[in-house]
Protein backbone atom coordinates (compact mmCIF):
# COMPACT_ATOMS: atom_id res chain seq x y z
CA UNK A 1 0.00 0.00 0.00
CA UNK A 2 1.37 3.41 -0.96
CA UNK A 3 0.39 7.05 -0.51
CA UNK A 4 0.07 8.99 2.69
CA UNK A 5 -3.51 9.96 1.73
CA UNK A 6 -4.59 6.33 1.71
CA UNK A 7 -2.70 5.67 4.94
CA UNK A 8 -4.50 8.59 6.54
CA UNK A 9 -7.87 7.28 5.31
CA UNK A 10 -7.13 3.83 6.73
CA UNK A 11 -6.04 5.34 10.05
CA UNK A 12 -9.23 7.39 10.31
CA UNK A 13 -11.46 4.45 9.41
CA UNK A 14 -9.62 2.22 11.89
CA UNK A 15 -10.57 4.65 14.67
CA UNK A 16 -14.27 3.93 14.17
CA UNK A 17 -15.98 1.54 16.61
CA UNK A 18 -15.93 -2.03 15.37
CA UNK A 19 -13.09 -1.41 12.95
CA UNK A 20 -9.37 -2.10 13.33
CA UNK A 21 -6.44 -1.60 10.97
CA UNK A 22 -7.33 -4.62 8.83
CA UNK A 23 -11.01 -3.81 8.49
CA UNK A 24 -10.02 -0.14 8.00
CA UNK A 25 -7.93 -1.18 5.02
CA UNK A 26 -10.81 -3.22 3.59
CA UNK A 27 -13.22 -0.30 4.02
CA UNK A 28 -10.73 2.12 2.42
CA UNK A 29 -10.25 -0.20 -0.53
CA UNK A 30 -14.02 -0.58 -1.00
CA UNK A 31 -14.43 3.21 -0.96
CA UNK A 32 -11.66 3.74 -3.49
CA UNK A 33 -12.90 1.00 -5.82
CA UNK A 34 -16.46 2.35 -5.76
CA UNK A 35 -15.83 6.09 -6.00
CA UNK A 36 -19.06 7.00 -7.77
CA UNK A 37 -21.45 4.75 -5.90
CA UNK A 38 -19.87 4.81 -2.44
CA UNK A 39 -17.11 7.34 -1.87
CA UNK A 40 -18.75 10.48 -3.30
CA UNK A 41 -22.20 9.84 -1.78
CA UNK A 42 -20.51 9.13 1.55
CA UNK A 43 -18.57 12.41 1.38
CA UNK A 44 -21.79 14.28 0.62
CA UNK A 45 -23.63 12.60 3.49
CA UNK A 46 -20.79 13.24 5.93
CA UNK A 47 -20.61 16.91 4.97
CA UNK A 48 -24.36 17.23 5.33
CA UNK A 49 -24.36 15.50 8.73
CA UNK A 50 -21.43 17.61 9.93
CA UNK A 51 -23.18 20.86 9.11
CA UNK A 52 -26.79 19.92 9.91
CA UNK A 53 -26.88 17.56 12.91
CA UNK A 54 -26.97 19.22 16.32
CA UNK A 55 -27.84 18.21 19.85
CA UNK A 56 -31.41 18.95 20.85
CA UNK A 57 -31.38 21.68 23.49
CA UNK A 58 -34.35 20.07 25.20
CA UNK A 59 -33.65 16.32 25.41
CA UNK A 60 -30.04 15.97 24.21
CA UNK A 61 -30.91 13.78 21.23
CA UNK A 62 -29.08 14.29 17.92
CA UNK A 63 -31.15 15.63 15.05
CA UNK A 64 -31.09 18.19 12.26
CA UNK A 65 -33.55 20.40 14.14
CA UNK A 66 -33.65 21.89 17.61
CA UNK A 67 -35.96 20.84 19.28
CA UNK A 68 -35.60 17.40 17.72
CA UNK A 69 -38.31 15.48 15.89
CA UNK A 70 -39.05 13.40 19.00
CA UNK A 71 -39.61 16.49 21.13
CA UNK A 72 -41.94 18.23 18.67
CA UNK A 73 -43.93 15.14 17.74
CA UNK A 74 -47.38 15.84 19.19
CA UNK A 75 -48.39 12.19 18.91
CA UNK A 76 -45.90 11.23 21.60
CA UNK A 77 -47.04 10.99 25.21
CA UNK A 78 -45.72 14.11 26.94
CA UNK A 79 -46.68 12.83 30.39
CA UNK A 80 -43.92 10.19 30.35
CA UNK A 81 -40.27 11.20 30.42
CA UNK A 82 -37.69 8.45 29.95
CA UNK A 83 -34.20 9.22 31.26
CA UNK A 84 -31.44 7.41 29.35
CA UNK A 85 -27.70 7.35 29.83
CA UNK A 86 -26.71 8.23 26.26
CA UNK A 87 -28.00 8.49 22.73
CA UNK A 88 -27.20 4.82 22.06
CA UNK A 89 -29.72 3.91 24.80
CA UNK A 90 -32.27 6.29 23.27
CA UNK A 91 -31.82 4.71 19.85
CA UNK A 92 -32.11 1.22 21.39
CA UNK A 93 -35.45 2.08 23.04
CA UNK A 94 -36.70 3.92 19.98
CA UNK A 95 -35.63 1.06 17.72
CA UNK A 96 -37.54 -1.39 19.87
CA UNK A 97 -40.67 0.71 19.40
CA UNK A 98 -41.82 0.05 22.95
CA UNK A 99 -41.94 3.60 24.27
CA UNK A 100 -43.98 6.47 22.93
CA UNK A 101 -43.16 9.15 25.49
CA UNK A 102 -40.38 11.70 25.51
CA UNK A 103 -36.71 11.23 26.35
CA UNK A 104 -34.02 12.95 28.34
CA UNK A 105 -30.39 12.07 27.58
CA UNK A 106 -28.33 12.34 30.75
CA UNK A 107 -24.94 12.27 29.03
CA UNK A 108 -23.44 9.47 31.15
CA UNK A 109 -23.61 8.13 34.69
CA UNK A 110 -21.85 9.17 37.89
CA UNK A 111 -18.39 7.66 37.78
CA UNK A 112 -15.57 8.75 40.07
CA UNK A 113 -13.09 6.74 37.99
CA UNK A 114 -13.95 8.66 34.84
CA UNK A 115 -14.32 11.91 36.76
CA UNK A 116 -18.05 12.22 36.02
CA UNK A 117 -19.73 14.27 38.77
CA UNK A 118 -23.39 15.40 38.97
CA UNK A 119 -22.50 18.75 37.40
CA UNK A 120 -21.22 16.96 34.30
CA UNK A 121 -24.64 15.44 33.61
CA UNK A 122 -27.79 17.20 32.42
CA UNK A 123 -29.52 16.80 35.77
CA UNK A 124 -30.62 20.42 36.29
CA UNK A 125 -32.48 20.44 32.99
CA UNK A 126 -34.07 17.10 33.92
CA UNK A 127 -35.34 18.56 37.20
CA UNK A 128 -36.73 21.55 35.26
CA UNK A 129 -38.47 19.29 32.76
CA UNK A 130 -39.91 17.08 35.51
CA UNK A 131 -41.43 20.19 37.08
CA UNK A 132 -43.42 20.96 33.93
CA UNK A 133 -47.13 20.57 34.38
CA UNK A 134 -47.70 17.88 31.73
CA UNK A 135 -45.04 15.46 33.03
CA UNK A 136 -46.58 12.78 35.26
CA UNK A 137 -43.96 10.01 35.24
CA UNK A 138 -40.18 9.92 35.02
CA UNK A 139 -38.80 6.54 33.95
CA UNK A 140 -35.15 5.94 34.88
CA UNK A 141 -33.86 3.65 32.10
CA UNK A 142 -30.26 3.42 33.31
CA UNK A 143 -27.81 0.53 33.24
CA UNK A 144 -28.12 -2.24 35.82
CA UNK A 145 -24.61 -1.52 37.06
CA UNK A 146 -23.38 -0.08 40.34
CA UNK A 147 -22.70 3.27 38.61
CA UNK A 148 -26.00 3.26 36.73
CA UNK A 149 -28.10 2.50 39.79
CA UNK A 150 -26.12 4.91 41.98
CA UNK A 151 -27.03 7.58 39.42
CA UNK A 152 -30.66 6.43 39.51
CA UNK A 153 -30.78 6.78 43.31
CA UNK A 154 -29.18 10.21 43.04
CA UNK A 155 -31.82 11.26 40.51
CA UNK A 156 -34.58 9.98 42.79
CA UNK A 157 -33.24 12.29 45.51
CA UNK A 158 -33.01 15.23 43.13
CA UNK A 159 -36.52 14.64 41.78
CA UNK A 160 -38.05 14.15 45.22
CA UNK A 161 -39.55 17.62 45.27
CA UNK A 162 -41.14 17.19 41.82
CA UNK A 163 -44.73 16.07 41.72
CA UNK A 164 -44.07 13.06 39.46
CA UNK A 165 -44.11 9.28 39.77
CA UNK A 166 -40.55 7.95 39.47
CA UNK A 167 -40.15 4.44 38.07
CA UNK A 168 -37.22 2.41 36.80
CA UNK A 169 -36.64 -0.56 34.55
CA UNK A 170 -37.00 -4.08 35.97
CA UNK A 171 -34.01 -6.42 36.32
CA UNK A 172 -34.30 -10.11 35.59
CA UNK A 173 -34.34 -12.96 33.12
CA UNK A 174 -33.95 -11.78 29.50
CA UNK A 175 -36.36 -13.08 26.86
CA UNK A 176 -34.94 -16.33 25.57
CA UNK A 177 -32.66 -16.61 28.59
CA UNK A 178 -32.15 -20.05 30.11
CA UNK A 179 -31.74 -20.08 33.87
CA UNK A 180 -28.65 -22.31 33.91
CA UNK A 181 -26.79 -19.78 31.74
CA UNK A 182 -27.61 -16.75 33.90
CA UNK A 183 -25.19 -15.29 36.42
CA UNK A 184 -26.02 -15.49 40.14
CA UNK A 185 -26.70 -11.78 40.43
CA UNK A 186 -29.28 -11.68 37.63
CA UNK A 187 -30.96 -14.81 39.00
CA UNK A 188 -31.13 -13.27 42.47
CA UNK A 189 -32.54 -9.98 41.12
CA UNK A 190 -35.12 -11.88 39.06
CA UNK A 191 -36.20 -13.90 42.09
CA UNK A 192 -36.43 -10.77 44.24
CA UNK A 193 -38.57 -9.03 41.61
CA UNK A 194 -40.95 -11.99 41.12
CA UNK A 195 -44.61 -11.22 40.60
CA UNK A 196 -47.89 -13.11 40.85
CA UNK A 197 -48.40 -15.44 37.88
Amino acid at each position, binding site marked *: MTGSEIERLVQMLARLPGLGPRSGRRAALALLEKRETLLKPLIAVLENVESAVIACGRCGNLDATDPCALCVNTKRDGSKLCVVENIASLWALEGAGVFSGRYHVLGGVLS*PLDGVAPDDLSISSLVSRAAESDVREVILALSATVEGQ*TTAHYLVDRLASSDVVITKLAHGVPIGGELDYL*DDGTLGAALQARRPA
Partner: protein
Amino acid sequence: MNWIDEGIFLNARNYGESASFVTILTRAHGRHAGLVRGGSSRRLRPILQTGNFVQCAWRGRLEENLGTFTIELSHAIAAALLDNPVALAGLSSACGLVSVLLPEREAHSTVFHSLRKLLDTIKRDNNWFTEYVRWETNLLRELGFGLALDSCAATGQTDNLTWVSPKTGRAVSADAGAPYADHLLPLPKFLIIQNSASTGEIRDGLKLTGHFLGRAAESGGCALPPARNRLLDSFSRTPTTSCDNNVL
Protein backbone atom coordinates in the same frame (compact mmCIF):
# COMPACT_ATOMS: atom_id res chain seq x y z
CA MET B 1 4.58 -15.42 35.75
CA ASN B 2 1.08 -16.27 36.93
CA TRP B 3 -0.94 -16.77 40.08
CA ILE B 4 -4.47 -17.61 41.19
CA ASP B 5 -6.14 -15.81 44.07
CA GLU B 6 -9.52 -14.91 45.49
CA GLY B 7 -10.54 -11.29 45.26
CA ILE B 8 -13.13 -8.57 45.67
CA PHE B 9 -13.87 -6.70 42.47
CA LEU B 10 -13.29 -2.95 42.91
CA ASN B 11 -13.75 -1.21 39.57
CA ALA B 12 -13.51 -1.47 35.79
CA ARG B 13 -12.95 0.93 32.95
CA ASN B 14 -13.46 0.16 29.30
CA TYR B 15 -10.24 -0.31 27.42
CA GLY B 16 -10.57 -0.30 23.65
CA GLU B 17 -13.72 -1.82 22.30
CA SER B 18 -14.01 -5.05 24.20
CA ALA B 19 -11.40 -5.14 26.97
CA SER B 20 -11.62 -3.72 30.49
CA PHE B 21 -8.96 -2.31 32.73
CA VAL B 22 -9.90 -3.64 36.18
CA THR B 23 -8.78 -3.37 39.80
CA ILE B 24 -9.29 -6.19 42.28
CA LEU B 25 -8.49 -6.44 45.97
CA THR B 26 -6.91 -9.87 46.22
CA ARG B 27 -6.23 -11.82 49.40
CA ALA B 28 -2.52 -12.46 48.91
CA HIS B 29 -1.52 -9.88 46.27
CA GLY B 30 -3.27 -6.78 47.55
CA ARG B 31 -4.95 -4.24 45.30
CA HIS B 32 -3.98 -5.37 41.84
CA ALA B 33 -4.81 -3.97 38.40
CA GLY B 34 -4.91 -5.86 35.15
CA LEU B 35 -6.56 -6.22 31.78
CA VAL B 36 -9.59 -8.43 31.19
CA ARG B 37 -10.00 -9.37 27.55
CA GLY B 38 -13.66 -9.32 26.56
CA GLY B 39 -14.49 -7.43 29.76
CA SER B 40 -17.21 -5.42 28.00
CA SER B 41 -18.93 -8.57 26.79
CA ARG B 42 -22.44 -9.53 27.80
CA ARG B 43 -21.08 -12.57 29.63
CA LEU B 44 -18.51 -10.75 31.75
CA ARG B 45 -20.21 -7.44 32.51
CA PRO B 46 -22.45 -8.85 35.28
CA ILE B 47 -19.35 -10.34 36.91
CA LEU B 48 -17.25 -7.16 36.69
CA GLN B 49 -19.38 -5.23 39.16
CA THR B 50 -18.04 -3.46 42.24
CA GLY B 51 -18.15 -5.63 45.36
CA ASN B 52 -18.52 -9.02 43.68
CA PHE B 53 -16.41 -11.86 45.10
CA VAL B 54 -14.33 -13.41 42.34
CA GLN B 55 -11.71 -16.03 41.62
CA CYS B 56 -8.99 -14.45 39.52
CA ALA B 57 -6.02 -15.79 37.63
CA TRP B 58 -3.34 -13.23 36.74
CA ARG B 59 -0.80 -13.77 34.02
CA GLY B 60 2.04 -11.52 32.90
CA ARG B 61 5.42 -11.98 31.26
CA LEU B 62 7.12 -10.12 34.10
CA GLU B 63 5.90 -9.38 37.62
CA GLU B 64 5.94 -5.63 36.94
CA ASN B 65 3.79 -5.98 33.79
CA LEU B 66 0.15 -4.89 33.84
CA GLY B 67 -0.83 -8.46 32.96
CA THR B 68 -4.19 -9.96 32.17
CA PHE B 69 -6.84 -11.36 34.47
CA THR B 70 -9.16 -14.28 33.91
CA ILE B 71 -12.09 -13.84 36.25
CA GLU B 72 -14.85 -16.11 37.51
CA LEU B 73 -17.64 -15.14 39.84
CA SER B 74 -17.61 -16.70 43.33
CA HIS B 75 -20.43 -14.76 44.92
CA ALA B 76 -22.54 -11.93 43.52
CA ILE B 77 -22.95 -9.00 45.89
CA ALA B 78 -23.71 -5.94 43.73
CA ALA B 79 -26.85 -7.25 42.04
CA ALA B 80 -28.59 -7.80 45.38
CA LEU B 81 -27.98 -4.20 46.46
CA LEU B 82 -28.87 -2.28 43.30
CA ASP B 83 -32.34 -1.37 44.57
CA ASN B 84 -31.19 -0.28 48.03
CA PRO B 85 -29.68 3.23 47.84
CA VAL B 86 -28.04 3.24 51.28
CA ALA B 87 -26.63 -0.28 50.94
CA LEU B 88 -25.34 0.60 47.47
CA ALA B 89 -23.73 3.75 48.89
CA GLY B 90 -22.11 1.60 51.62
CA LEU B 91 -20.74 -0.87 49.07
CA SER B 92 -19.50 1.90 46.76
CA SER B 93 -17.96 3.78 49.67
CA ALA B 94 -16.10 0.79 51.12
CA CYS B 95 -14.77 -0.33 47.72
CA GLY B 96 -13.98 3.27 46.76
CA LEU B 97 -11.96 3.79 49.95
CA VAL B 98 -9.94 0.65 49.31
CA SER B 99 -9.36 1.73 45.70
CA VAL B 100 -8.13 5.16 46.77
CA LEU B 101 -6.26 4.47 50.00
CA LEU B 102 -4.63 1.05 49.76
CA PRO B 103 -1.25 0.93 48.04
CA GLU B 104 -1.09 -1.20 44.92
CA ARG B 105 0.35 -4.73 44.96
CA GLU B 106 0.86 -4.78 48.71
CA ALA B 107 -0.85 -7.62 50.55
CA HIS B 108 -3.39 -6.46 53.14
CA SER B 109 -5.15 -9.69 54.00
CA THR B 110 -6.76 -8.10 57.09
CA VAL B 111 -8.47 -5.51 54.89
CA PHE B 112 -9.44 -8.20 52.39
CA HIS B 113 -11.09 -10.41 55.01
CA SER B 114 -12.76 -7.51 56.83
CA LEU B 115 -14.10 -6.05 53.56
CA ARG B 116 -15.46 -9.45 52.53
CA LYS B 117 -17.20 -9.78 55.89
CA LEU B 118 -18.56 -6.24 55.66
CA LEU B 119 -19.96 -6.69 52.14
CA ASP B 120 -21.54 -9.97 53.18
CA THR B 121 -23.16 -8.20 56.13
CA ILE B 122 -24.42 -5.34 53.93
CA LYS B 123 -26.00 -7.93 51.65
CA ARG B 124 -27.60 -10.03 54.38
CA ASP B 125 -28.32 -7.69 57.26
CA ASN B 126 -30.20 -4.39 57.27
CA ASN B 127 -28.34 -3.30 60.39
CA TRP B 128 -24.82 -3.02 58.93
CA PHE B 129 -24.11 0.59 59.81
CA THR B 130 -22.17 0.05 63.05
CA GLU B 131 -20.09 -2.64 61.39
CA TYR B 132 -19.34 -0.27 58.53
CA VAL B 133 -17.97 2.43 60.86
CA ARG B 134 -15.93 -0.19 62.77
CA TRP B 135 -14.58 -1.41 59.44
CA GLU B 136 -13.42 2.14 58.63
CA THR B 137 -11.62 2.36 62.01
CA ASN B 138 -9.89 -0.94 61.16
CA LEU B 139 -8.95 0.41 57.74
CA LEU B 140 -7.48 3.49 59.42
CA ARG B 141 -5.39 1.24 61.69
CA GLU B 142 -4.15 -0.71 58.66
CA LEU B 143 -3.18 2.58 56.98
CA GLY B 144 -1.26 3.78 60.04
CA PHE B 145 -3.88 6.30 61.16
CA GLY B 146 -5.33 4.14 63.95
CA LEU B 147 -7.54 5.74 66.59
CA ALA B 148 -6.66 5.23 70.29
CA LEU B 149 -10.03 5.03 71.99
CA ASP B 150 -9.18 3.08 75.14
CA SER B 151 -8.18 5.93 77.45
CA CYS B 152 -8.30 9.70 77.75
CA ALA B 153 -5.32 11.47 76.17
CA ALA B 154 -5.38 14.15 78.90
CA THR B 155 -6.20 12.29 82.11
CA GLY B 156 -5.65 8.64 81.31
CA GLN B 157 -9.08 7.68 82.60
CA THR B 158 -10.85 4.87 80.78
CA ASP B 159 -14.46 5.77 81.42
CA ASN B 160 -16.75 8.58 80.27
CA LEU B 161 -14.87 8.98 77.00
CA THR B 162 -16.96 11.23 74.74
CA TRP B 163 -14.57 13.02 72.38
CA VAL B 164 -11.71 12.36 70.01
CA SER B 165 -8.91 14.80 69.28
CA PRO B 166 -8.91 15.61 65.54
CA LYS B 167 -5.13 16.05 65.71
CA THR B 168 -4.01 12.89 67.50
CA GLY B 169 -6.95 10.51 67.06
CA ARG B 170 -6.92 9.83 70.81
CA ALA B 171 -10.02 9.72 73.00
CA VAL B 172 -10.77 12.54 75.43
CA SER B 173 -13.02 12.26 78.48
CA ALA B 174 -16.11 14.44 78.90
CA ASP B 175 -14.57 16.48 81.73
CA ALA B 176 -11.19 17.03 80.09
CA GLY B 177 -12.74 17.84 76.73
CA ALA B 178 -15.48 20.18 77.90
CA PRO B 179 -13.48 23.42 77.43
CA TYR B 180 -12.48 22.37 73.89
CA ALA B 181 -15.77 20.80 72.84
CA ASP B 182 -16.04 22.97 69.73
CA HIS B 183 -12.75 21.65 68.41
CA LEU B 184 -13.22 17.95 69.27
CA LEU B 185 -14.99 15.21 67.36
CA PRO B 186 -17.83 13.36 69.13
CA LEU B 187 -16.97 9.75 70.01
CA PRO B 188 -20.00 7.48 69.54
CA LYS B 189 -20.43 4.90 72.31
CA PHE B 190 -20.72 1.95 69.93
CA LEU B 191 -17.05 2.32 69.00
CA ILE B 192 -16.05 1.63 72.63
CA ILE B 193 -18.60 -0.95 73.67
CA GLN B 194 -20.39 -3.42 71.43
CA ASN B 195 -23.94 -2.16 71.28
CA SER B 196 -26.51 -0.80 68.87
CA ALA B 197 -26.45 2.81 67.81
CA SER B 198 -28.82 5.58 66.81
CA THR B 199 -28.64 7.19 63.40
CA GLY B 200 -27.07 10.24 65.03
CA GLU B 201 -24.31 8.09 66.55
CA ILE B 202 -23.68 6.43 63.17
CA ARG B 203 -23.44 9.89 61.64
CA ASP B 204 -20.96 10.94 64.34
CA GLY B 205 -18.97 7.77 63.69
CA LEU B 206 -18.87 8.46 59.96
CA LYS B 207 -17.76 12.05 60.59
CA LEU B 208 -15.06 10.82 62.97
CA THR B 209 -13.61 8.22 60.61
CA GLY B 210 -14.18 10.52 57.63
CA HIS B 211 -11.95 13.16 59.22
CA PHE B 212 -9.03 10.76 59.55
CA LEU B 213 -9.70 9.01 56.23
CA GLY B 214 -9.56 12.46 54.64
CA ARG B 215 -6.17 13.00 56.22
CA ALA B 216 -4.99 9.61 54.99
CA ALA B 217 -6.20 10.46 51.49
CA GLU B 218 -4.59 13.89 51.64
CA SER B 219 -1.25 12.38 52.62
CA GLY B 220 -1.47 10.20 49.51
CA GLY B 221 -2.29 13.21 47.32
CA CYS B 222 -5.88 12.15 46.61
CA ALA B 223 -9.41 12.85 47.81
CA LEU B 224 -12.02 10.63 49.42
CA PRO B 225 -14.28 8.91 46.88
CA PRO B 226 -17.58 10.75 46.22
CA ALA B 227 -19.46 7.61 47.32
CA ARG B 228 -18.13 8.16 50.87
CA ASN B 229 -19.66 11.63 50.92
CA ARG B 230 -22.92 10.28 49.53
CA LEU B 231 -23.06 7.72 52.33
CA LEU B 232 -22.64 10.45 54.94
CA ASP B 233 -25.24 12.57 53.13
CA SER B 234 -27.76 9.76 53.29
CA PHE B 235 -27.33 9.66 57.07
CA SER B 236 -27.40 13.43 57.37
CA ARG B 237 -30.84 13.48 55.76
CA THR B 238 -32.16 10.81 58.13
CA PRO B 239 -33.69 11.83 61.46
CA THR B 240 -31.96 10.54 64.59
CA THR B 241 -33.50 7.17 65.46
CA SER B 242 -32.39 3.74 66.56
CA CYS B 243 -30.60 1.65 63.95
CA ASP B 244 -31.66 -1.65 65.57
CA ASN B 245 -34.02 -2.18 62.67
CA ASN B 246 -33.94 -1.11 59.08
CA VAL B 247 -34.76 2.52 59.68
CA LEU B 248 -33.30 3.92 56.48
